[in-house]
């Protein structure tokens, strides 16, 4: 007990905790400001300090942000954007995971001719900036008659998600003993049966990681949603930008803050409920660069 106290109180320890505390403070301060501001009335914001706690906390800005604030021409709050984002994110998470898993499985176990080359080409895609590909993609989707629709934005997210999803699953399956695949082959399993009955049930950890990466990536996306989704499907991030950049009238800081928190809520909740997996997902992303 004594030695443990000693350890906790050593100068190095104190230094580490001081650093961690100040770093946490630095990153949490903006969030704190957002939260308190969103709970204040405009009068209170004008009169008080940014850091002060709300004197008369109100949820009115949140209600306005959700259902009344103007996002460009329409004034229905960020609600519409929220549901648009859900409609984009759900298929843009499920499809890339499914395809990425099949791809990774094929690359790791079946090793078709030219697989390494194909994977290499796919990985090149991961390193080319998204912006470079926007114009060609716009032309392509316009030719296909898909431009500015929900399928278009899902397809674009599917394309850009493919390299990382494939790599994630390929690396995961590379760590599965090859003998497991061989045993299943001797038992007569074909491509999809081995995948669905042997490999997929093993893949829950990596599916969780992939889902976290894809949901955060798609939800936080702005540029692709703005370009490809079309007027009726603009995601929450785009709507939020419209809310905040509205130039008519006075700036409703409290509503803006509430709208921003609402937009950030999904990735934030994901982080809180799956912290362990989230870190793995971020680490996997870090390797990719």
């Amino acid at each position: 007990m004594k030695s443990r106290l000693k350890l906790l109180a050593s100068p190095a320890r104190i230094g580490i905790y001081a650093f961690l505390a100040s770093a946490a403070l630095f990153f949490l301060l903006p969030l704190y400001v957002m939260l308190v501001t969103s709970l204040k009335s405009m009068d209170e914001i004008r009169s008080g300090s940014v850091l002060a706690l709300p004197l008369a906390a109100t949820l009115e800005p949140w209600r306005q942000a959700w259902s009344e604030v103007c996002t460009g021409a329409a004034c229905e709050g960020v609600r519409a954007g929220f549901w648009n984002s859900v409609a984009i994110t759900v298929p843009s998470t499920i499809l890339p995971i499914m395809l990425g898993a099949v791809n990774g499985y094929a690359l790791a176990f079946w090793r078709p001719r030219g697989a390494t080359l194909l994977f290499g080409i796919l990985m090149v895609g991961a390193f080319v900036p998204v912006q470079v590909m926007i114009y060609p993609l716009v032309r392509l989707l316009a030719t296909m008659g898909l431009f500015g629709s929900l399928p278009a934005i899902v397809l674009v997210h599917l394309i850009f998600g493919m390299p990382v999803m494939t790599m994630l699953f390929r690396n995961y399956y590379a760590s599965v003993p090859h003998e497991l695949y061989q045993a299943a082959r001797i038992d007569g399993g074909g491509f999809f049966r081995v995948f669905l009955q042997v490999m997929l049930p093993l893949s829950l950890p990596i599916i969780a990681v992939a889902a976290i990466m894809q949901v955060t990536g798609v939800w936080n996306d702005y540029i692709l949603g703005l370009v490809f989704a079309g007027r009726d499907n603009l995601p929450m991030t785009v709507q939020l930008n419209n809310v905040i950049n509205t130039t008519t009238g006075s700036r409703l800081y409290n509503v803006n803050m509430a709208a921003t928190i609402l937009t950030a809520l999904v990735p934030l909740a994901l982080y809180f409920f799956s912290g362990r997996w989230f870190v793995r997902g971020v680490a996997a992303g870090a390797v990719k660069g």
Partner: protein
Amino acid sequence: MSNVELNQFSITLAKNQVIQNLDLSVRQGEFLVLLGPSGCGKSTLLHSIAGLIEPSGGTLTIGGRDMAGVDPSERGIGMVFQSYALYPTMTVEKNMSFGLRIAGLPKAEIARRVERVAGMLQLKELLKRKPAELSGGQRQRVAIGRALVREASVFLFDEPLSNLDAKLRTELRRELKLLHQTLRSTMIYVTHDQVEAMTLATRIVVMQGGRVQQIGTPTEVYERPANLFVAGFLGTPAMNFIDGQLNGAGQFDAAPLTLQLPGAAQAQARTGGARAAVLGVRPEHVHIASGASLSGTVSLVEPMGNHQVVWLQCGPHLLSAISQEGSYVSGQQVAFAIDASRVSLFDRASGDNLQAGQVSQAGLADAA
């Protein structure tokens, strides 16, 4: 009758020729052990028989049927892997029945087979468990069971016991041998453990560098090794090798050791003339006995419980001798004899057994 037949079989992996023009025929009901050091191509060969690795040349037939391009599941084989390779998310029962369910067998038939095999391998209480809830020995039993329910004509084992501890290994080895006696099906078994090879095999194939060094019954391979590699690979402690000269009169000289060779070796020596040779003596054929003609100094004694290994220094040569009784201390002078009728003679340059004629004759007699 031959069950598995390989002709001029070659395997090339990443431009390396792993197996070169191999001919091998495995008889019905035989327990054939492929024995060799790691990297000798024995596992690759087994995987290729299973259809998991494409051969680069030659033919393979199982039960008379050509296996070129035949899917692993269509070959009539069952396979047991070193890492067990059980499906982690399935229960023991589902693991064993996976292949049968894919093949679309009727439920009653699947239940009957699983029941029978589970009874044979004492797995009945474990049927509802997942692999993670089993011990190593139990897992390997399930892996064997999964191969057995296929009721295949050939069973392939890829170092199935190497992941187990020594005690379990001995137990399962015994069970495997009993299983073979009961089932009488053809088994091809890969191992680098010479004890497993000696105890289990009806015939051993000793391999090195993708080539077969010798094929024979355990006794043949042990007592009449075809070359220095086989002689050195089998037996613990290893065979004693003594470098020396063979003269035309059938006498082996390696000062201060001399040995008069009997019969066949002598004849070979006469026809082949004098040459540099290596004498191979098994430790159990070095007898420590008072009044014997050779003498040496005890340098080390290793007690093994039921016997002891006595290391003798005789001039420049260090020999191991297995002795059942008597007590020795290092530094002690002892007299010993070498059983000249049981020694092997190898050509120093090629490493081949100089009594090769004798070996192949024995092989022919066995085949006939």
